[in-house]
């Protein structure tokens, strides 16, 4: 029976622990406004209501902010994946000594604190004439969000044997074709992981819109959440509803990806998903 404990009871406890924050966020958003905070662990609010969600759009142009966020994500996520995948493949192609140098260089890039570039980047954007456009929000995508994602790809591509890459070359494929048709399809779990991480990043990106966007009607949802936070610091249901809306797309994207990403055998899961 200790087998069952090891295989199921422990994982289930861990899972419950990690799911708890999200659960409490959800139930928190369903509490009626003005109810005193619960004094015991409460799994479901007594008079659950969607009232907070109804009040949200009245307080701010919720849907415009959401649409702006969605548009940024729609452009930035594919761009991030593309950048990371191409760069990671480049690292993979280098001979071992050069590869080591590239990895060290990427770690150095990773080392540069974000605070070092926030304000000074503005200068670059101003010179390029792109302040108050979507471009500054796409800048992280051009950097693959973080060199970490590039390294993730490089490492995944490492799993594709040299002989396959060479075989494809001999069959007449250029390196871009090899990347697209031989290497990329084999690291789809990595692509999914990068896409999820990129989506979470871009969707929750707060500092870039704060610093580089000026027009209120271009704002993304994380900025809007800050307005909400101020509005009535004690209106927990409203706040939680805002958080739920901020979190929901990430959860949905993740749930779509986890079917493959976290399944017992990602390769098999991908094949089942084929048309």
């Amino acid at each position, binding site marked *: 029976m200790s087998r069952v404990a090891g295989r199921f009871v422990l994982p289930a406890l861990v899972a419950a622990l990690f799911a708890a924050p999200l659960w409490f966020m959800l139930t928190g958003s369903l509490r009626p406004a003005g109810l005193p905070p619960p004094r015991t662990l409460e799994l479901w609010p007594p008079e659950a209501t969607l009232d907070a969600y109804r009040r949200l759009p009245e307080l701010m142009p919720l849907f415009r902010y959401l649409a702006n966020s969605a548009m940024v994500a729609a452009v930035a996520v594919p761009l991030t994946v593309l950048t990371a995948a191409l760069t990671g493949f480049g690292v993979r192609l280098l001979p071992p000594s050069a590869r080591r140098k590239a990895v060290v260089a990427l770690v150095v890039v990773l080392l540069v604190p974000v605070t070092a570039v926030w304000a000074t980047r503005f200068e670059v954007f101003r010179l390029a004439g792109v302040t108050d456009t979507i471009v500054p929000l796409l800048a992280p995508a051009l950097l693959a969000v973080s060199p970490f994602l590039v390294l993730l790809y490089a490492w995944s591509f490492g799993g594709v044997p040299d*002989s396959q890459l060479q075989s494809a070359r001999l*069959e007449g494929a250029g390196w871009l074709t090899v990347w697209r048709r031989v290497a990329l*399809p084999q690291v789809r779990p990595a692509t999914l992981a990068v896409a999820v991480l990129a989506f979470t990043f871009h969707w929750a990106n707060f500092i870039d819109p704060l610093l580089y966007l000026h027009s209120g009607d271009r704002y993304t949802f994380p900025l809007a959440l800050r307005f909400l936070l101020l509005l009535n610091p004690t209106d927990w249901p409203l706040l939680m509803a805002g958080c739920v809306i901020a979190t929901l797309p990430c959860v949905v994207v993740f749930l779509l990806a986890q079917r493959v990403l976290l399944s017992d055998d990602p*390769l098999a899961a991908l094949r089942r998903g084929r048309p």
Partner: protein
Amino acid sequence: MTDGGGLRLTGLVKAYGPVRAVEGVDLDVPAGELVTVVGPSGSGKSTMLRLIAGLERPDAGMVAVGGQDLRDVPPHRRSVAMVFQDYALYPHLTVRENIMFGLRVRKVPKGEARRQAGAAAERLGIADLLDRYPDQASGGQRQRVALARALVRSPAVYLLDEPLVSLDAQLRLSTRADLLALHRQIGSTTLHVTHDQAEAMTMGDRVVVMDAGRIRQAGPPQEVYDAPADTFVAGFLGSPPMNLVPGGGVLGGAAGGTVGVRPEDLALDPAGPIEATVDAVETLGSEAVLLTRCPDGLRLAVRTPPRLSLRPGDTVRLRFDPDRLHRFDAAGRRV
């Protein structure tokens, strides 16, 4: 199909750090010839193929196909197909897609590519695997997929790196025949690396024996077998290999040199000049090999018919055919 053009290697050298994998190879393969390459493990066979394919840059020397120097031609522009020792199948593609890959890359229309892939699979007996993935096939089946992938194309040069090792004896025999038929039909220049004595002897127009990054001998198989250029080749081809007797010994003196005799050129003969004790009898079904030892400690292998009632410890007398002796000088070269 392609007429290809011959392959010429001139002074090829390649080292991996301190390891000198290929050390000056010159080879001339006329268009359409099939050459088998044999040599001990680590002798640089795979490396030579990789140099021809352009997957490695030679440290020195030149590869030319059809008279054209390929120095600056990247692999995907060389008209070369290769079967890798480890198959190099694409795990994310089905067997059919694996076979079609090279055609699709070269913009052959999908329907046509499918048809050709189907035909190649049919020929190699893997037609029923077409919709499986490589990891759902057994070792031998995978190897045939790799072969099919090379065969659907019509390159100037085929490079086959031990394409049959994972097949069982029966399958090996039939695939070997298929390969030969195909070669005759397409006529591409082909280099075939193998460890198998039978393949080396039967498949090629010529056999190339490599050792330590160099070509020791190249020529028609029977010629190489009958007149090995040096003791290395003599000891390498043939199973069991030639009995080499430094100094000549019982086979007749050869001061400073070596005298060799093949096991099949020794025979049991109660009146033979050589006396030996039987160390072991290896019965191979159709024949047997006697491992014997002369009183002076010299070991001689003798090929005999099976079902002899000899036991280890028995004493036998052997005769040899003086015409079939091979003589080598002190440096091991044939005289």
